């Protein structure tokens, strides 16, 4: 194998890593805000699926990529509203709620999808192309890896410092973090706990819907009912493995994305291992990460505990 050939493959794997990271990062960084507000939204997988599905419907029916992405975010908002209603207002168990939502999303998307394509071939679409950043994209190696990506990928990367700034440098961010640790302290101060938690859940779900929309429009040309393939769960693992810190979450997401990128290159790498082994790597890695990284110091003390006055 020539040296030049190897270099091309490495650059290609790293560029794929950044692209594959995008939907995971949207979901994980959004859900991080939700969790810091004390809500364990376990419905990430279903919300992502709903976002992907709605994006598919809009892009094939109305032929607008921007409209499709907005619709995916709106779908996320609706899912978030349901989760917030059930966990904050009804104080249902967070886990059971999220699980129920995932199962609901699986059933609904399958039904709508079959109704949508009934009696005709499945419509396809042309998704996002790359947006090269002038100047930066001509840097050797880095240009191709970081600066020749889909437009939304830049937004996802930018979201990490933005969410960090919001959580650690603004008054609202402080309140959100406080909700996860000691909601009573805020309540006593006269801050509306429920309203903040609704906001945090809906923000996380909009980001997750956006991730789902990108998953559809950035990688594929048609909808499949198993399109999310556990990515919503990987986003949750990334938060835990990242110890509830934005940069930790980014690192964990990178690991998953790199492993998935490896799997897409397995034929070019030419290793004599069944390709299912590579496909299974992110899931295996998530168990190993959880076994190895046992620091849970960053876990909000009140995460998953429904807040009751008195």
């Amino acid at each position, binding site marked *: 194998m020539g040296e030049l050939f190897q270099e091309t493959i490495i650059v290609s794997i790293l560029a794929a890593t950044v692209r594959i990271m995008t939907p995971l990062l949207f979901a994980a960084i959004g859900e991080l805000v939700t969790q810091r507000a004390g809500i364990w939204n376990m419905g990430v997988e279903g919300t992502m699926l709903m976002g992907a599905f709605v994006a598919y419907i809009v892009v094939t029916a109305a032929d607008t990529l921007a409209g499709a992405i907005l619709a995916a975010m709106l779908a996320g908002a609706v899912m978030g509203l349901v989760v917030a209603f059930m966990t904050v207002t009804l104080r249902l168990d967070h886990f059971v709620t999220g699980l*129920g939502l995932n199962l609901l999303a699986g*059933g*609904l998307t399958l039904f*709508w999808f*079959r109704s949508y394509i009934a009696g005709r071939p499945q419509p396809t679409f042309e998704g996002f192309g790359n947006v090269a950043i002038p100047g930066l994209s001509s840097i050797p190696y880095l240009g191709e890896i970081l600066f020749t990506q889909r437009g939304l990928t830049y937004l996802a990367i930018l979201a990490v410092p933005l969410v960090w700034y919001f959580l650690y440098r603004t008054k609202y961010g402080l309140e959100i973090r406080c909700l996860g640790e000691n909601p009573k302290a805020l309540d006593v101060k006269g801050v509306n706990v429920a309203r903040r938690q609704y906001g945090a859940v809906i923000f996380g779900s909009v980001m997750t819907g956006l991730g789902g929309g990108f998953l559809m429009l950035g990688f594929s040309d048609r909808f499949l009912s198993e399109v999310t393939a556990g990515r919503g*769960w990987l986003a949750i693992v990334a938060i835990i493995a990242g110890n509830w810190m934005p940069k930790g979450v980014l690192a964990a997401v990178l690991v998953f994305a790199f492993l998935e990128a490896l799997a897409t290159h397995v034929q070019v790498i030419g290793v004599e291992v069944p390709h299912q082994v590579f496909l299974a790597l992110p*899931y295996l890695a998530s168990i190993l990460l959880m076994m190895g990284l046992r620091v849970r110091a960053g876990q909000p003390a009140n995460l998953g505990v429904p807040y009751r006055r008195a």
Partner: protein
Amino acid sequence: MIKVEPRLESSLAWTIGAFALAILAGFLVSGLLVAASGADVLKAFTALFQGAFGSLKAITASLVKATPLILTGLATVVAFRAQIWNIGQEGQLYAGAMAAYLGSLVLAGMPSAIQIPGIVLFGLAGGVVLGGLAAVLKTRFRVSEIISTVMLNYLVVYLLSYLLAGGPWTEIGETVSYHQSPPIPEAAHLPLLISGSKLHIGFLFAIAAAILCYLLLEKTPLGFEIRARGYNPTALRARGSNVPRTIFLVLAISGAIAALGGVSELFGVGHRLRGDYLFGLGYTGIIIGMIGGLRPGGTVLAGLFFGGLESGALYMKILSGVPSALVPAMEGIVLLFVLIAGVIARFRFVRVTADG
């Protein structure tokens, strides 16, 4: 004036009433879905119920569909009652089918009377291994069972995919290889309950499992610990109960029951190992167990009902054009209403007079 206040004790009649309302609401919303898709709602639902329960033949077909759902539902009950969130029924069902298939290869050629019990034991062992693994990850490595069981589901599916697509269990045709195993010899098929129908003894396994689950939960020390964990895990630890042992037993039992669903589908219905007809049975079982109120009896009823609808869905599709995926959508919708009803059932309405 009417005031809402929490109930001190749950009332069975009120709970059943709330559940009935939830199922009704679920049907209404599902009807709206059908109407929105442009189909005739009444025609679709009539066909759905006729296809499910309209004749003796339809009923036996429904019982066949209900069998794996009851089993994965019961697996959910045992775990969730202990507040152990095993969502690995999907993987455990696959593991059961795979281990049992391995058993059928090991025991090939033996008489059915030896082969079939042996195959069932292999299958159960597969579920115990996968459930037990999640327990060890939880108690030894503090990995949440929610995460580990989801990830194990994916890992098991990829393992099956390897075994059937190029791996040692792949059926090799004349020119192509299929993503399935060769057919299972007839000696290893589960016997039929009614000859001429498709109803096999797997259905009896499901009913027996429900009775055993009831006895386990209500009449045994382990059942007491499971229910106590459901109320207050911390108090149990303080009482000196062996928590890791309970977690292991619960997950192993739960895994074994789900695995039995896989054995029953493979040796009673599919007769060759393939991923497609096993897909989703574990996740649906979670819905069945929760709609069944996390009680064995309720789970059997929910399994029979939704198993029936899944069986009737094809008839509905032919008669009214509504996709059979309506049934999974209905299951999700009903589940959401049942969860909400669970909250309502914890409250009661009290009439308050003006003076207090």
